């Protein structure tokens, strides 16, 4: 069966009807990230049938796909041309879609060096809360005509509209990747990562957990041997599985019913609350489990210039995302009104409305 189909007219009609009746919709692609964000409300609204790659020209470094296209399909098509989605999106299930990957704004281990969805999103076709189909951005790398209304859709969790199509910058797959493993406590792990970063080593992933530091490097073994002579570490065989498991949160660390915090902070920041920690992104992302009141965690992270998200578990009706300054919160409400004046899309998924 050819799954490639454009059902934008069907979706548009349904949105127009929902807007008229005030029916709130819970947007759903592959339904793999329902755990993320504030609790789901509204009628489930399936977007997964709107799928297919619309345009892909490897030498233009851009792929355009319908929001419901499975990530696995896009990645396979890109891989056949030795290219990749540079933000290495997590696949929380086999059904994960490109629309969901962009809407969640989440990235994998490659993020600090290759960018997040917001960095790579070049253009969108959006179905807004009035049922209008709108185009922002485009299929070219550089575009400053009008306000950039594409990038803010990355991470908006569908609260501003439905991503009918997304155009994304792609990059060549690294010809070779090698992983080094170091035995290191937190302090040493930090020192090793910093030295490699400042040395302009071609890092494409870092993970520190249980005194083990894995560093993925985009280079062949000859260069890795040179780096190893200076920085130490052991070469890891078949590390692909490791990085995929990290990306998709398959490690035992993530298998928990306890609150799992996602802490985003400056890479060199100190964070000393007692608990279990897994550090990625050269220090800029810390996964944290610890029995502390929300306020304690938030204020410890805020002082570093970062922010804390209750990523999994805990009270999903509470403040999942870091509270906003009142002026910024007001701007959020006004932008919501611009795109979704009837408040039908994913009500309250980001912040209470």
């Amino acid at each position, binding site marked *: 069966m050819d799954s490639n189909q454009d059902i934008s007219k069907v979706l548009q009609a349904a949105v127009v009807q929902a807007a008229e009746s005030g029916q709130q919709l819970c947007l759903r692609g592959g339904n793999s990230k329902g755990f993320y964000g504030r609790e789901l409300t509204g009628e489930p609204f399936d977007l997964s049938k709107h799928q297919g790659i619309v345009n892909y020209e490897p030498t233009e470094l851009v792929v355009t796909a319908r929001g419901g296209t499975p990530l696995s399909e896009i990645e396979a098509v890109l891989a056949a041309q030795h290219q990749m989605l540079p933000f290495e999106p997590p696949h929380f299930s086999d059904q994960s879609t490109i629309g969901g990957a962009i809407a969640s704004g989440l990235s994998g281990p490659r993020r600090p060096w290759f*960018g997040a969805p917001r960095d790579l999103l070049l253009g969108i076709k959006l179905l807004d809360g009035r049922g209008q189909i709108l185009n922002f951005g*485009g299929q070219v790398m550089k575009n*400053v005509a009008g306000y950039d209304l594409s990038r803010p859709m990355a991470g908006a969790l569908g609260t501003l509209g439905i991503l009918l199509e997304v155009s994304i910058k792609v990059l060549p797959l690294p010809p070779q990747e090698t992983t080094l493993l170091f035995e290191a406590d937190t302090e040493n792990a930090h020192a090793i990562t910093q030295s490699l970063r400042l040395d302009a080593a*071609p890092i494409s992933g870092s993970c520190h957990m249980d005194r083990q530091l894995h560093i993925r490097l985009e280079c062949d073994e000859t260069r890795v041997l040179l780096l190893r002579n200076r920085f130490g570490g052991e070469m890891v065989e078949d590390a692909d599985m490791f990085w995929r498991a990290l990306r998709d949160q398959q490690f035992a660390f993530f298998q928990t019913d306890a609150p799992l915090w996602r802490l985003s902070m400056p*890479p060199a920041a100190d964070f000393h609350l007692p608990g279990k920690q897994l550090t990625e992104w050269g220090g800029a992302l810390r996964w944290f489990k610890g029995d502390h009141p929300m306020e304690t965690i938030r204020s410890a992270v805020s002082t570093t210039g970062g*922010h804390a998200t209750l990523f999994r578990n805990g009270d999903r009706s509470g403040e999942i995302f870091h509270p906003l300054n009142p002026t910024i919160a007001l701007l959020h409400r006004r932008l919501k009104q611009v795109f979704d004046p009837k408040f039908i899309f994913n009500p309250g998924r980001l912040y209470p409305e």
Partner: protein
Amino acid sequence: MQGQSDNNSLRRQRQRRTLADAFLKMLPTEAVIFRDEELVPYECDGLSAYRQVPLIVLLPYDTSQVQAILRYCHTNKIPVVARGAGTGLSGGALPHEDGVLLSLARLNKILEVDQPNMCARVQPGVRNLAISDAARSHGLYYAPDPSSQIACSIGGNVAENAGGVHCLKYGLTVNNLLEVTLITIDGDRITLGGGGLDSPGLDLLALMTGSEGMLGVVVEVLVKLLPIPTKAQVILAAFDEVEAAGNAVAVIIANGIIPAGLELMDNLSLRAAEAFIHAGYPVEAAAILLCELDGSEDEVTVSVASVCAILKQSGASEVRISRDEAERQLFWAGRKAAFPAVGRISPDYYCMDGTIPRKQLAMVLKKIAEMSERYDLRCANVFHAGDGNLHPLILYDANIPGELEKAERFGGEILELCVAVGGTITGEHGVGLEKIDQMCAQFPDAELEIFHAVKAAFDPDNLLNPGKAIPTLSRCAEFGAMHVHAGQLRFPELERF
């Protein structure tokens, strides 16, 4: 008529006096500029064809003064145009006749270079190149490098989402910012982004970047810094046909190589640059490609060899590799001075900034050549070939009556062609006032209405840089009436995207 303009001038003098009195109460004397002869330097930015003397110029020394200015303007409904170094090429900082020109030039301190976190906290008036200069002793640099980087300020870079020759590999301004603090029209101070790689809620930092001073005034920026690559080399390749040069770019990318910079210059622009800089460019070539590769010693050695092979296979008549840092700089100097170089061979030039899918390059250049004959104006082309950003430079003489208008029509037609082939009217210079009519060619009414609504979400009274970047629907209706002759769009032979 004479009486009316005298009245107008009297009214402006009175308004100017009122504003000067008000601002002198809240700002130091040197921060308030209101004498005719002192206002003139602010009448235009880098697009000197458009000029307007502002009512008053304010040069605050700190953020709290910026807040006080915006609060006053908000209360009294006075338009405010923010200005950085004034190097913009689209008239984005063109003053408003009845407004304040707010220069951020005195907020010019580098507050901190943070090596462990690889970032720098700077004020908006800091020059782009000064950031890299300050970071160098830490082994770091700021990647986006617009050609005007010696002079342009980071605040302006944020407002325009400035690019440069290294964008393909290292991204635009939006990809190299961590945090921006700005003052809203109400005088509120807000910080978007943060010290980490993302921030909670909607990505307003992305929205703010490139918003051309329409949504807020930037007062502080935290930029990302990168380690200086161990090695960088430039390859210069000459081609007998522009098309072959364009195809070579596609082959380089198809081979999995992302150069740090990849630039194409056509014969007219490379001749002009050679006459000016003496970079050793082959003046007989139809086009040259400059391809920079950076990274570790080994990486660069390997990729330089592959790129050279690709260029030769793609029909390059000559391939040169920079032998040392001085020669690398020299190869770039010609390209970076292309605009002023063209300025030397023509009394005036008009710089366009379309982006096109790279595969359309040969066709677009052919059409531009046809237009050049039809308008009887020469046109030099420089092209950020890696990312499809084309800068046609239309040569004209403003002293010949009607020639500027002709150049503008020529430019407008080029931009509409860029849209028609699936590209955009501006890749990195911004819409400003210059390309406001072409916005009508790029966006239908529904999108434009959303833009106006977004503007109103930040600035309900339309006081920040009013009249720029986003055309009114009625302006587009007039523009449409003018451009669609007998129901025919321009370029009817092209498939529409």
